[in-house]
């Protein structure tokens, strides 16, 4: 028999552009599993894709279909925080089905009363915002303006960044939220630049309004340096604006200690036709891979999968890197503890299903992002 896993993503709706690569990355992980012998002694993992459209109504409906009708063993997704919370509350937790979101960054997810079913492979915004703030101050950037997207992702990151940056003695000379989908952000930029900062920090998506902001800032010469969160570490700016125009642009992104994991993912994903710089793809891959490990560990028992997820990546045991499925299976068979070190970080789930995360600051080199400095 096959093991069914649900991939729940915001395929239609506001993050339509981000969802497909994320789904592809998750599928890549399962493909690797299947190639390397499958789960539970030769069974294949098959995926069923559901569309949460980035709103709770569709999310819960799609999750209900996956869990109740398709009888999936676990869910990877949804992508947006709102549906994550709603699905966790009204489907995953009641049904006791594990849920790993690769991109739900809201702090609210931490404290959900989820009976241990909810995990995420993306760190809560808190960590990244603070790490980025520290790194910038350490690099000598003391005065910045912040433009953030008015959603859970943008406002979460911006809030954390602001608090830490100011504690570190930095000055935020402009701080403003914006709505997505507008054609012009030039006056926003003009307002922000009036504070006198020459660095703009953008917490937005690089293939959405973040790109528009970056473009309009560059074209009109509003700022000289640009810093983005992980959402901005997207191939879209390179593709649309040209690498030659982005020499002063850096973006932070989660990464693991074992950068071999990231390399191996990058290689595999590029080979499969994906863009490794797309937003949240590594997190998505990790979510799928760790889930496969947990299924193996739980022996296919749906009810045991949630607990198994934290067991396979809790910082204890033999390290397993991205793509090393065969090795992991053998270890599990041998009854050894394993510790998955993912492409987007080491994971190491805490009791709430959150990951602490480690970050690096990336700059553009050639046509893709290259690690500039690790952040802490």
């Amino acid at each position, binding site marked *: 028999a096959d093991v069914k896993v649900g991939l729940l993503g915001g395929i239609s709706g506001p993050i*339509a*552009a981000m969802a497909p690569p994320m789904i592809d990355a998750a599928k890549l992980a399962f493909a690797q599993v299947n190639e390397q012998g499958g789960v539970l002694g030769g069974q294949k993992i098959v995926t069923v894709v559901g569309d949460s459209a980035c709103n709770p109504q569709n999310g819960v409906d799609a999750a209900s279909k996956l869990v109740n009708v398709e009888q999936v063993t676990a869910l990877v997704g949804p992508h947006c925080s709102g549906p994550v919370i709603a699905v966790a509350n009204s489907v995953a937790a009641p049904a006791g089905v594990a849920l790993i979101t690769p991109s739900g960054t809201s702090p609210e997810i931490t404290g959900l009363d989820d009976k241990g079913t909810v995990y995420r492979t993306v760190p809560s915004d808190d960590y990244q915002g603070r790490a980025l703030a520290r790194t910038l101050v350490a690099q000598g950037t003391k005065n910045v303006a912040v433009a953030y997207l008015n959603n859970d992702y943008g406002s979460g990151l911006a809030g954390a960044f602001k608090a830490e940056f100011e504690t570190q003695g930095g000055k935020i000379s402009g701080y403003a939220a*914006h709505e997505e*989908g507008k*054609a*012009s952000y030039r006056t926003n930029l*003009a307002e922000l630049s009036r504070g006198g900062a020459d660095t703009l920090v953008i917490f937005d998506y690089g293939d959405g309004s973040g790109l*528009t902001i970056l*473009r309009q800032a560059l074209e009109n010469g509003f700022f000289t340096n640009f810093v983005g969160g992980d959402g901005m570490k997207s191939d879209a700016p390179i593709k649309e604006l040209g690498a030659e125009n982005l020499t002063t642009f850096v973006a932070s992104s989660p990464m693991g200690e074992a950068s071999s994991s990231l390399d191996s993912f990058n290689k595999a994903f590029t080979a499969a036709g994906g863009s490794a710089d797309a937003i949240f793809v590594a997190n998505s891959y990790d979510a799928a891979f760790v889930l496969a490990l947990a299924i193996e560990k739980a022996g296919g028992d749906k009810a045991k999968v949630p607990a198994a997820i934290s067991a396979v990546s809790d910082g204890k045991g033999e390290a397993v890197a991205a793509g090393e499925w065969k090795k992991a299976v053998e270890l599990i068979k041998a009854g050894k503890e394993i510790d998955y070190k993912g492409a987007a970080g080491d994971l190491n789930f805490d009791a709430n299903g959150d990951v602490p995360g480690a970050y690096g600051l990336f700059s553009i080199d050639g046509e893709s992002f290259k690690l500039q400095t690790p952040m802490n």
Partner: protein
Amino acid sequence: MTLLELMNFYVIPGLVLGSIYAVGAVGITLVFGILRFAHLAHGDLATFGAFAALAVVTASGISPWAALPIAMALCALIAIGIDKVFYDYLTDRPKIITVMASLGIALMLRAVIQVIWGVDTETYSRGLVRPENYWGLRLRDREIFTMLAMFAIVGVLWVFLQKTKWGKAMRAMSDNPDLALLSGVDNRRTTMLTWAIVGALCAASGFFLGLNTELKALMGWTMLLPMFAAAILGGVGRVEGAVLGGLVVGVAEELSVLVLPSEYKAAMAFVILLLILLVRPTGLLKGKLL
């Protein structure tokens, strides 16, 4: 802040944005005024037009401006087709039904766009275009062209509606379709012509939006509300009004960050709209009270 700064960073962006809104709003106001319903598929048809132009550009390598007429023609045909297949048989029903049908069309068009062109962000030409300096005013070529083209398109349309029999036939049909028939107006052909114009305008507005920013599968849908606001603001059924409304909404949105937190920028169009409607319930230029 100097006057020049105000112009460069607030007013000019507002006018460019307003011009983009205006082209869309003119189409919306035509459907409103002539066919008497709110065309919710307008934004997605605009997206379709923008992507069609992109397809032409990538396939043949011609300049985006040369692709524009092709996209306009294509969208005109598609608009006529949509009307023939989906809206036409609802003509005699309450207009709200056609509004719902157009919502369905919006979904269908969006799906088609996503299937054909995917969901990635695209541009007509890669790279940056920095503005030129005209006596202190900073303008990019494409911004000048956008504004000029907007006035040209709207001007031609206005003359066409004023000077030809078609304009009158359209108004007659919208006023009293049965009586128009009895006067010898061929309502079918008039409707077709209306859709051809509306489709072409859709393509143009999508194109300008894409030219000045990027092309995204949902770009039209997110622009729909401000465009509607512009159309209503100008007075329903009034082409000049739609242009005025578009410019007002565009400039007001851009200037709003001076007084409001920027997260409320999106609401600006509606605040202006509500205020103006309170004073002039028929819009800036007297529109029809439907």
